[in-house]
């Protein structure tokens, strides 16, 4: 039994003059216009307390990770760090929702999601430190390299999910994107391929309002980014991206749908980048202080902590333990990144091809001779 031969769309039934109306009903695909929220709603009572505490711990540790990486960048220890400060609910929900066999396809702002997924926090930063490209094993961790060219990782998620489905393995691929990325052609092609192939993929768009400096109004005239899903024939879901339990619930539903053969989902999470785009950016040139202040009041940690304390789930001991875990991680980062990395210039030629070409062997010998001459000086 093959996967694709039995699709009902192998031909276009009834493609005759006079056919009218949409081929499928778009109504079930439309996102609810108000973003899904759980915090402060009765629905939260159905949530697993252990999950809520796990999300809280991940948020606190994740914020500390973002802060420490930002500090290390200001100290010149990392080349660049696109912080997800303020977006941690999306980042950690991804880590919590994926099963070990699933795959994550992150963008450059998703280092924390990669760490939350289980990748070593220091290995996740080699790219941004600048001593190597991808520091972790993407196959062993089922985590694709952090992707810089926007949305180009989205079709990879589709292909991987498709391959897993061909092999009959219950693997889901989750691709992370930003609002700017939805303007890229690869975003469109990935969603179209995913829907046509019925691939088990979840596309998570963290809409933080700005693509570096360009606001969403200049990025898209769609009713919402989640509405774009309808054009591809997949459901779109809109969620409060700073409500960690809500992001987790919406993603969990989409992941389950994908795993059970229901196909892809586009999730738009409304969130905010509290820091500038990177250390090289000046966000005061394009954002008002009042806007940033309003989002600080809607901080994902603040929202969850307030709720957990009022419901009695969180006490000082648990909160302190989370802070201590964050401090341990930060100390580990400082210890690692204040030391000079070991660099091996001859490694430049090692992984260009399976076997180095004659030309690369000659160039490696040239560099080795230059290094030897330098050492002899």
């Amino acid at each position, binding site marked *: 039994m093959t996967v694709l*031969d039995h699709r009902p769309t192998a031909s276009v039934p009834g493609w005759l003059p006079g056919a009218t109306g949409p081929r499928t009903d778009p109504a079930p695909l439309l996102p609810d216009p108000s973003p899904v929220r759980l915090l402060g709603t009765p629905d939260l009572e159905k949530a697993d307390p252990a999950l809520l505490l796990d999300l809280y711990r991940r948020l606190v540790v994740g914020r500390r990770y973002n802060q420490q990486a930002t500090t290390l960048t200001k100290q010149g220890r990392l080349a660049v760090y696109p912080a997800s400060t303020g977006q941690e609910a999306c980042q950690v929900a991804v880590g919590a929702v994926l099963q070990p066999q699933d795959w994550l396809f992150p963008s450059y702002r998703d280092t924390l999601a990669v760490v939350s997924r289980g990748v070593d926090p220091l290995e996740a930063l080699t790219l941004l430190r600048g001593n190597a490209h991808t520091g972790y094993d993407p196959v062993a961790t089922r985590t694709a*390299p952090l992707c810089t060219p926007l949305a180009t990782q989205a079709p990879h998620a589709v292909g991987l999910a498709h391959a897993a489905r061909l092999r009959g393995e219950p693997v889901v691929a989750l691709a992370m994107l930003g609002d700017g990325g939805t303007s890229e052609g690869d975003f469109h092609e990935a969603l179209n*391929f995913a829907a046509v192939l019925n691939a088990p993929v979840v596309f998570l768009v963290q809409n933080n309002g700005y693509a570096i400096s360009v606001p969403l109004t200049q990025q898209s005239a769609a009713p919402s980014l989640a509405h774009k899903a309808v054009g591809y024939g997949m459901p779109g879901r809109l969620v409060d991206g700073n409500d960690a339990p809500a992001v987790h619930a919406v993603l969990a539903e989409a992941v389950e749908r994908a795993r059970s053969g229901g196909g892809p989902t586009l999730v738009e999470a409304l969130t905010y980048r509290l820091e500038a785009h990177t250390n090289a950016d000046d966000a005061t040139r394009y954002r008002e202080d009042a806007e940033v202040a309003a989002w600080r009041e809607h901080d994902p940690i603040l929202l969850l902590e307030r709720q957990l304390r009022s419901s009695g789930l969180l006490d000082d001991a648990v909160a302190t333990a989370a802070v201590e875990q964050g401090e341990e991680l930060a100390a580990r980062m400082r210890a690692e990144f204040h030391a000079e990395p070991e660099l091996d210039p001859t490694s430049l030629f090692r*992984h260009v091809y399976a076997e180095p070409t004659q030309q690369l062997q000659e160039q490696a010998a040239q560099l080795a001779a230059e290094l030897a001459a330098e050492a002899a000086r």
Partner: protein
Amino acid sequence: MSTLTPAGTRTSTMAQALNAALRDSLREDPAVHLLGEDVGALGGVFRITDGLTAEFGADRCLDTPLAEAGILGTAIGMAMYGLRPVVEMQFDAFAYPAMEQLVSHVAKMRNRTAGRMPLPITIRIPYGGGIGGVEHHSDSSEAYYAGTPGLHVVTPATVQDAYGLLRASIASDDPVVFLEPKRLYWSKGELDPAAAVSAAAEPIGKAVLRRTGRSAVLITYGPSLPVCLEAAEAAAAEGWDLAVLDLRTLVPFDDRTVCEVVRSLGRAVVVHESTGFGGVGAEIAARVTERCFHHLAAPVLRVTGFDIPYPPPMLEHHHLPGVDRILDAVARLQWEG
């Protein structure tokens, strides 16, 4: 040699040889998957995938939506999961939307991941002119690919090579841009599949002398090989005994064979359809000059397409290197010295 590869020699077109290579690869390796536009029921616009969906099913030979970046991006994901995708781009100039996936990911993934995530993808691209195609159907885009580290660039010029090099490309753990000279699709020759896959019969990265000679060598590849062989025949009447070297692989480049031939003859002309400025021929002329300078009796000359957008089909014969233009170049190899 595989037990599944048919034994014996038969007369075949290049298109049939490519089809046979795909079929035999699909049979022998369950990881091989084909995808592209119109590769299913139609068998591709050049019929290179003829009958493959019928034989192997849509799971193995997939008609995709019409989007080249999406096709190659999807193939990347499939390769990440352990499959061995073979992608068909419908025409040379239609492959450009996939350029970002090719340059930023296909070419770099092994390097970006310290060897942990190789991408064994073969990207088949019909290329070159001479078939009367209207604009955007006749580009020679090899220099773009050859200038991108991490890719192998392979182009067959004979029926036997079409089979052998495609099998080797699909079996390669490195990504291969496999450029099919579309005006040779209907050329005929002897095909011996078993010989082609037998050990090192058709290795990637090995140039081969198609004609020996004592006067000078024409260095060429792909669609220009038959033109060069014809020119060598014509040159014999004028007293020049020309060798013809078929590169077969642009990357990795076979410096050793090229330099051996040039050193022994002292005169060389590089011939290709693609534009000359910044083209593969410029690289070859520079490499040969750097390595063989004291053996050269004349500068290495190039006979290439003009530095113009590909012309309308009724004018293309003025653009493409022909026998006369090649002979003119041979005449300029400073024989009087």
